[in-house]
């Protein structure tokens, strides 16, 4: 993917660029909001990663301007403000996701992947399928090897998020946000508990496990390599 990073702190920028390059992406780094706006409107990027506090034009205004120019490139805000209103402000300005510093690189990467592969116009899928696991989104039914699996509504959402991100890492925080609408970090094993319940229903009765733990980061649903 071709990524645009607008970040003025050299060490953070270096860390991100190195990580993204290692992950096989091309990353353009700019240190100023005005330059970022110019680049974002001139070149086609897959994802924009913007720090909220950069010189020139701040990240929030930059993304607003990009959106005003009719460019729909997905954007992630990086913020060290960590404020309770940051998420809402970021999303209102036209951002698609936000991440509070300090963050784990794996978290950023997972979010970039989730945004970058999101189809441009969210096509209306009626069914999801990974190997022998099938999910009917209309009837809200799940079957594996043709056997129906009985899931609680929240377990269904959890599995849906994992299946939509097939093969990608979905972090613990992403699951909390997308499945439970938790925008804070619970101190108990909420995610672990529910994943283990889901595994008991989806994986345990069958030979091949599909839900995999990615150490220190999150989970991924795919056919084992």
């Amino acid at each position, binding site marked *: 993917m071709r990524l645009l990073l607008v970040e003025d702190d050299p060490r953070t920028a270096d860390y991100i660029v190195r990580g993204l390059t290692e992950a096989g992406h091309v990353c353009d780094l700019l240190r100023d909001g005005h330059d970022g706006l110019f680049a974002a409107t001139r070149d086609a990027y897959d994802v924009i990663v913007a720090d909220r506090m950069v010189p020139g034009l701040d990240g929030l205004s930059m993304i607003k301007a990009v959106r005003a120019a009719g460019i729909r490139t997905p954007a992630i805000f990086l913020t060290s403000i960590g404020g309770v209103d940051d998420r*809402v402000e970021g999303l209102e300005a036209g951002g698609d996701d936000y991440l509070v510093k300090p963050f784990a690189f794996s978290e950023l990467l997972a979010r970039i992947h989730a945004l970058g592969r999101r189809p441009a116009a969210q096509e209306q899928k009626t069914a999801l399928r990974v190997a022998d696991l099938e999910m009917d989104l209309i009837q809200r039914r799940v079957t594996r090897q043709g056997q129906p699996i009985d899931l609680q509504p929240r377990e269904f959402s959890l599995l849906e998020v994992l299946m939509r991100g097939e093969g990608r890492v979905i972090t613990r925080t992403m699951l909390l946000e997308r499945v439970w*609408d938790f925008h804070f970090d619970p101190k*108990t094993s909420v995610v672990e508990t529910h994943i*283990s319940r889901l595994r008991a229903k989806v994986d345990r009765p069958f030979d091949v496990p599909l839900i995999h733990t990615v150490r220190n980061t999150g989970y991924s649903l795919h056919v084992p390599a």
Partner: protein
Amino acid sequence: MSGTRLSLARSTPFRLALTFAFLFVLAFILSGAIVYQLMSDDLSRRLDESIKETYSVVAVTYAESDREDLISTVNDHAQLNADKEQLFSLTDQNGNRLAGNFTASDLPDGFSMFAVRLPGVPPDTMYRAYTGEVGDKNLTVAFSMSDTEELENIVLMSFGWGTLFITGLAVAGGALLASRVQRRLDGIASTMVDVSHGRLDARIPLIGNGDDIDAVSGQVNAALERLSALVDGMREVSANIAHDLKTPLNRLQMILESAADKTVSGEDVSGELTDARAESQQINSTFDALLRIAQIEAGARRARFVDLDVGPVVETIGEVYADVAEDDGKSLSTKVVPDTKWYIHGDRDLLMQMLANLVENALRHCPPGTAIELSVTSGGSHVLIHVSDNGPGIPAEERENVFRRLYRLDTSRTTPGSGLGLSLVKAVADLHGAAIVLEDRNPGLGVTVSFPALKPA
């Protein structure tokens, strides 16, 4: 700073008193002037009437008889007035006196005023005269104005003394009142000086009569109370940060040093790196929680409040944590009456976090086997959310403390947690105007958060 005691002349109350005294005296003088003018006009009119009357009495004798009678009447009148209080003059057309006790010369017909030097009369005595023609002669009747003037002088004098007395009274009274107010203002000023010098326990003395200064002083005292509570809180937080953040920072440093040592000897350090990461995450989450609480307390979030039903929020939390509790050997049950709505004005995200923190707090501090219960009830104008357990509870004397930042019961210092969970609960409740009540359930702890209801349920 203590030299800022204002001089009396520059004090607002004294200036006010002076202004009012000035206005009062001005009004007094003005009304006095009007009274004086009216009185003086009235006296002149009465004088004119008596002159005219006397003139008529004299003049009528001529009309009834003749010249000789007139002369003798004038002379009679003149002789009756040896003190020259009243003057009479009868002159022929050439101005020669025919009768009377003075010679009127060049006086116009009708009323006029003149001063005349006469033996036995104080100089400059003013006379009021009426002149008219009686046949071919001029008759003038003049009355001295000294009585009128004397009366006017008496009024003027008493008026002047009155003004002086009132001015003195107003200034003295004003100064007295002003100095009393000033003393209280000085009290406020010196309290503020004390506060600015760091004596946050200084309070403005109240008189207790409930006047405006007392009311303002009371408000200032309340603000000082809050300020000193905040500063105490800050001090405590600083001390706790020093302890609770320095401990993991120390550990982090030790881990890194050990990793550095191991690297030198070529050993594997992945264990140390994992530990270091966990420590730094812990430090970060503590900072995050502190920041979040500060931002919630700042209140900007209130602008995003919407009308919402707390029922689904409580149900969601109950649903999320029921399995977590079960895995932990505890139980969590949720009691929300179906098809009932509990509307409040609030922020869903913050309410979720508040409830999550309360439930997690119960999960963390209760032994296995504990039953935790989550419910919503309606209490008149309030929506009550209850989180109760049958665990060890919190000692009564500690109940206020648990909401303080970074505060942890000694018994829980060793269990994980930042000591910020309940502070955040309190911050969210305060933002919503909700009260939190902790009660002993013998055994266990009952937490009730009561939100102002939007509509009576």
